[in-house]
């Protein structure tokens, strides 16, 4: 019917749910579902990405297993969501990287770390690599700033281009013409919904994780991770401005803005991912897409390693470990960016786009 087993199952469930509707107050998925009587692939992928996986509809459902209707919306949409990432991946040749994502990302990470270490070793003599450097521009003794900027700028631009192409395919498929600037209000609404994880709260009571007691833990840990990542990214941006506008070179003093932002973000990015991983470990398997465990863990691990190596670099930058740590940190960050369009990172992008679509649909109902 839809070409994949999971979309067929999602279609069956949406038909069940559409004739019940008890869950419509829990999140955005069910009100969006109610606007349709039949579901195209795009509709189902839209609903799958709108779902935040809070699990409330499973715990609240009178037809969840062991009931013979076997209604498990969170798990089904989780699988559909993961398959949608591969379906919209650009270029198509890399779609397969989602299937064994944990392995792919570990290999790329290991390879890029090794490349930086060998690169540093090859281009610098041992004394510089393992020397102690504390003055401004110390990092760039190991790798010229421009080389760093070109390399990371390129990989960053590539990641953005690949993501944009994926989003374009998704946006087309979920039934909107490309070009969403037409509705600024919906973009802001979606930003707010995403920023506060409005739909990761089971309709107000919290998420379901290991048992039937709702909790806000996952939401809090996701905030730590997301805003931690945001602060780290801001640190990098501020440092770039420092470099080009004020000709102030890293490393910066501990009180300087890039370091403060990076440290705060880094702490969030240490506690957040490790806690999310712990929650994931405990989570009732019935709510989880077990096959994508590797993808989830790989992304969480990459975020954690980014922060860990960054903070280690900060703490040990005045010792002889700085050279190898810089290589390690840059390797991890490089791998994080290069794999961004092909891993769990995309969940944030597609979910945001789904929220934009939802905001637009809701506005259309209310009539602006």
């Amino acid at each position, binding site marked *: 019917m839809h070409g994949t087993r999971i979309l067929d199952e999602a279609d069956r469930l949406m038909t069940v749910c559409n*004739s019940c509707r008890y869950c419509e107050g829990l999140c955005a998925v069910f009100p969006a579902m109610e606007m349709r009587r039949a579901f195209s692939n795009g509709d189902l992928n839209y609903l799958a990405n709108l779902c935040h996986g809070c699990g409330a509809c499973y715990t609240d459902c009178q037809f969840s297993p062991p009931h013979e209707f076997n209604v498990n919306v969170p798990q089904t949409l989780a699988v559909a969501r993961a398959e949608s990432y591969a379906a919209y991946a650009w270029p198509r040749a890399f779609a397969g990287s989602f299937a064994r994502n944990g392995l792919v990302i570990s290999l790329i990470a290991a390879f890029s770390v090794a490349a930086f270490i060998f690169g540093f070793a090859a281009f610098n003599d041992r004394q510089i690599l393992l020397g102690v450097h504390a003055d401004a521009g110390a990092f760039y003794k190991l790798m010229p700033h421009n080389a760093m900027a070109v390399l990371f700028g390129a990989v960053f631009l590539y990641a953005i281009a690949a993501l944009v192409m994926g989003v374009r395919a998704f946006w087309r498929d979920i039934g909107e013409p490309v070009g969403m600037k037409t509705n600024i209000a919906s973009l802001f609404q979606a930003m707010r919904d995403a920023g506060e994880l409005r739909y990761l709260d089971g309709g107000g009571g919290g998420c379901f994780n290991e048992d039937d007691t709702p909790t806000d833990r996952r939401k809090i840990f996701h905030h730590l991770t997301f805003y931690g990542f945001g602060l780290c990214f801001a640190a990098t941006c501020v440092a770039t401005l420092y470099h080009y506008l004020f000709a102030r070179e890293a490393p910066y003093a501990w009180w300087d803005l890039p370091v403060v932002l990076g440290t705060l973000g880094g702490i969030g990015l240490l506690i957040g991912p490790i806690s999310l991983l712990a929650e994931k470990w405990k989570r009732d398997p019935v709510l989880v897409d077990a096959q994508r465990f590797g993808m989830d863990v790989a992304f969480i691990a990459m975020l954690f390693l980014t922060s860990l190596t960054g903070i280690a670099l900060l703490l040990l930058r005045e010792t002889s470990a700085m050279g190898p740590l810089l290589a390690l940190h840059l390797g991890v960050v490089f791998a994080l960016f290069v794999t961004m369009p092909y891993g769990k990172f995309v969940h944030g992008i597609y979910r945001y786009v789904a929220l934009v679509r939802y905001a637009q649909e809701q506005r259309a109902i209310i009539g602006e």
Partner: protein
Amino acid sequence: MADLTRPYDVLVIGGGNAALCAAISARRAGASVLVLEAAPKFYRGGNTRHTRNMRCAHDAATEILTGPYTEEEFWQDLLLVTGGQTDEELARFMIHESKDILNWIVEQGVRWQPSLGGTLSLGRTNSFFLGGGRAMLNALYLTAEKLGVEIAYDAEVTDLQIEDGMFLGATLKQPIGGATDIRASVLVAAAGGFEANIEWLKEYWGAAADNFLIRGTPYNRGSILKMLLAKGVQEIGDPTQCHAVAIDGRAPKFDGGIITRHDSVVFGIVVNKHAERFYDEGEDIWPKRYAIWGRLVAAQPDQIAYIIFDSSVVTSFMPSLFPPIGAPTIAELAAKLELDPASLEKTVINFNAAVQPGTFDHTILDDCRTEGITPAKTHWARKIDAPPYLAYPVRPGITFTYLGTRVNKQSRIVMKDGKPSANMFAAGEIMAGNVLGKGYAAGIGMTIGSVFGRVAGREAAKNAKN
């Protein structure tokens, strides 16, 4: 695992809304409480797991209710649906208490939301549970557990020891927590009706009951009700009556819940297995007449009927779980339904010929009607002539039964001799017949459960201390 060898102040038998409200209110009043739920954990809660709202009186609009619903209006509605078969004193007491339940139930962890899509007609009178009845139950169970109420599942009670209207103890089918014989100072019976007990239904309905589908779980067997009535408790409500709606004939025998119902009757015609119409499909607006179709179908041969409509009305009603059966011609549709094609064609042709011109409006009693056929379709009658032709097979879906135990305003069970029991209370569907002698108004079962559950728990705790 709870220690069931110790004596409890209050024993609650049942696991739905009424049982949990009783358990929570007794526990809050200081009693030790044990809840025995016959069903396994997943199926806990009897019919509550399939509910979605509660009807409570309120003097002003709230965040989730669109306007006031006074006690008097509630009473008039109850009078209307029961045709006067209600205990006015108890009913007015319940309606008055329902006002405070709106807040009390929230304090027990239940969350409200505005009326669901497709139920706008209830937006003023009924408060909907966020996430539905199972979410409501989950909240009550969490609260009960937090308060220290002991709960045992798969705990089927096979005997009650009652002497002269005095509860002495209960016997479990199999030992739980080291005990088979349960001792408690007070009993609250909140174990529902007997809608899932086909043998019992057969006593009144004969072999037809074999073709009934049960909308709730198979655990609503009425065994506690039967024991109480056998041990001197005064009965109330018509034992032969049950609330039944038309549900999809392809639904499972038990627990199909809300998603198997059909509200498309008014948009077509309904025929029996002889392909003949048998009742005015346009008599009144859904949901007012929603409840009659189960019993109408139950009266037809083999307890089956078919809603026949055409493609022009497909989007006029809520989608349902099972897709309609379709065919390009009436004759082919009849073949798919295993009806006689010539008879169905004749029925549709006669119906179409009788349809008078009018202006269709399904929200009011419009002027689209038939003339010259029996039975007539008095509203919303439009020709069935836009292929493909579609059909839903429907059977009676039994929701609940009316037979119950007589209680007073304390929710205390009244014995056959008219004396109140020394230490037995009842709440919920098991005593709903006191208030709801017949008929139904959306959400009233939950009102009965919460109000009398709360009262029964409070009184039971008081009783246990004396």
